[in-house]
């Protein structure tokens, strides 16, 4: 949401981006923010999962921040990018109608551990967290109704993880691909026997 920045004039020197909300957060809870940066003008704060609820409540209620709108919540698989660290990021995009400013909050979650649920702070997080759970298998502690939302209930994988094949698994769509003549595939109903 770098649109908060004034459009750059040709040839002008790029100004260092600032964010009142991020400054306020850093001033109020310096120990909660693991790291903060600006990406293309937009402020990003990384918060440890343990302090997340505290930070989020502060961000919503503090008069200088007032992030009433959770614009988006999504998961992200960083298994390839940081193979040693936590596998997932949960990304929160906040917006304040009152001050018209934005903030991105991120928290890192390891595979198999839960992120705290922010459904108590923003009701909209309910479905977003269900989606993140559905797509990445990120658990959300304290979520009232954590079940699959887009995929069928009996589905047993997490499709947006990087290790899930793009074409889907053959057993999910119920047919198996066999190389046929003429460089084309034929589709068969039974799994082909392994030679």
């Amino acid at each position, binding site marked *: *949401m770098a*649109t908060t920045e004034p459009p750059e004039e040709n040839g002008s020197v790029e100004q260092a981006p600032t964010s009142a909300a991020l400054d306020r957060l850093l001033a109020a809870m310096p120990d909660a923010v693991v790291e903060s940066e600006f990406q293309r003008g937009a402020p990003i704060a990384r918060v440890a999962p343990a302090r997340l609820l505290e930070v989020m409540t502060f961000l919503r209620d503090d008069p200088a921040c007032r992030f009433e709108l959770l614009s988006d919540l999504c998961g992200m698989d960083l298994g390839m990018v940081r193979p040693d660290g936590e596998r997932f990021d949960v990304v929160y995009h906040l917006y304040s109608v009152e001050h018209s400013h934005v903030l991105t909050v991120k928290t890192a979650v390891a595979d198999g551990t839960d992120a705290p649920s922010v459904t108590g702070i923003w*009701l909209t997080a309910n479905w977003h967290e269900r989606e993140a759970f559905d797509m990445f298998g990120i658990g959300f502690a304290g979520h009232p109704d954590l079940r699959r939302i887009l*995929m069928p209930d009996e589905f047993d994988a997490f499709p947006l993880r990087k290790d899930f094949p*793009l074409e889907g698994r053959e057993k999910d769509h119920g047919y198996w691909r066999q190389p046929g003549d003429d460089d084309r595939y034929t589709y068969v109903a039974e799994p082909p026997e392994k030679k």
Partner: protein
Amino acid sequence: MLGTRELEINLGPQHPSTHGVLRVKLKLDGETIVESDPVIGYLHRGCEKLGENRNYIQTEVYTDRMDYIAAINENLVYIEAVEKLLGVEAAPRAQYMRVILAELQRIASHLVWLATHALDIGAMSVFLYCFREREAILDLIEGYCGARLTTNAIRAGGMRLDFPDGWTGAAKDFCDEFPARLKEYDTLLKTNRIWMGRTKDIGVISGEKALSYGITGPCLRASGVNYDVRKAMPYEVYSEMEFDVPLGSVGDTYDRYLVRLEEMRQSRLIVLQALAKMPEGPVMNKVPKRIKPPAGEVYVVNEGPRGELGVYLVSNGTDTAERCRFKSPCFVNLQALPELAKGHMVADIVALIGTLDIVLGCIDR
């Protein structure tokens, strides 16, 4: 022994008024809704996964298919995100063209909403009248980019093509004709006692609650919250346009109806202004042929017809995105359905599904 128990009924996924393949599990006490649970995912095509496996040019094709009622708005927000990643800007003429097309698309989308909403409540003719006007807009869009729904019209750095000869005149003609048509809809619906009875005080939601639910767009503004991305964080050339953001006072279905109708009028004004102000010049800035943005991330929001359309793109320096997230306003708005529907009757739930203006392709992605 006689006993009473709640009637459980499945509204959808095959049902005339679920706008696609939405399924709502309803618990009824007589005709009164006790509980409703929307079940989605029947149209899940994995656009986000595709966005991570296709390059930036190819992914735009998938944005057409998400909100297929308002493809240009989806194209626009995605391309804006790509441009922001690349650090390029669109050519000045292209920016005006984008605004014109996006606003025409907004009118078309609102017309579909009005048509289906009215049809759900039983006003059959409005459906066809609205589609007649929408046809005119789709003809304009087809004349510009060659496709009516899956436009694929916008490119990073500008537009694919310039307007063909006579296009601006045709667009002006449409704008001149449009208010008379809107007046007809008003006569048929706005003051009609049946329509008022069916929409007033149905699905009331306060501004605060709507914000907490993350509702955006006309549904939020009908609850009296003044948040329009076009005004709050102007993109393209919206800052140069003069237009009004209509707000509601009660936050019921009738307010949402009034707000959207007023938005159509305002969009028409924006189109006229942009047509008048549009400069001559090239429509495309210089952009590398293979789009390989430097690593980094960007979250861009736009005002779509249904609410805040968001795209979160994380680049890893290659020509495919590391993470391509589409935030859908319909997905968020639909979440409030149980809250809106509680205590109303079966007939109202179709009015509520209509008033939220959902597109299942946008919800499931």
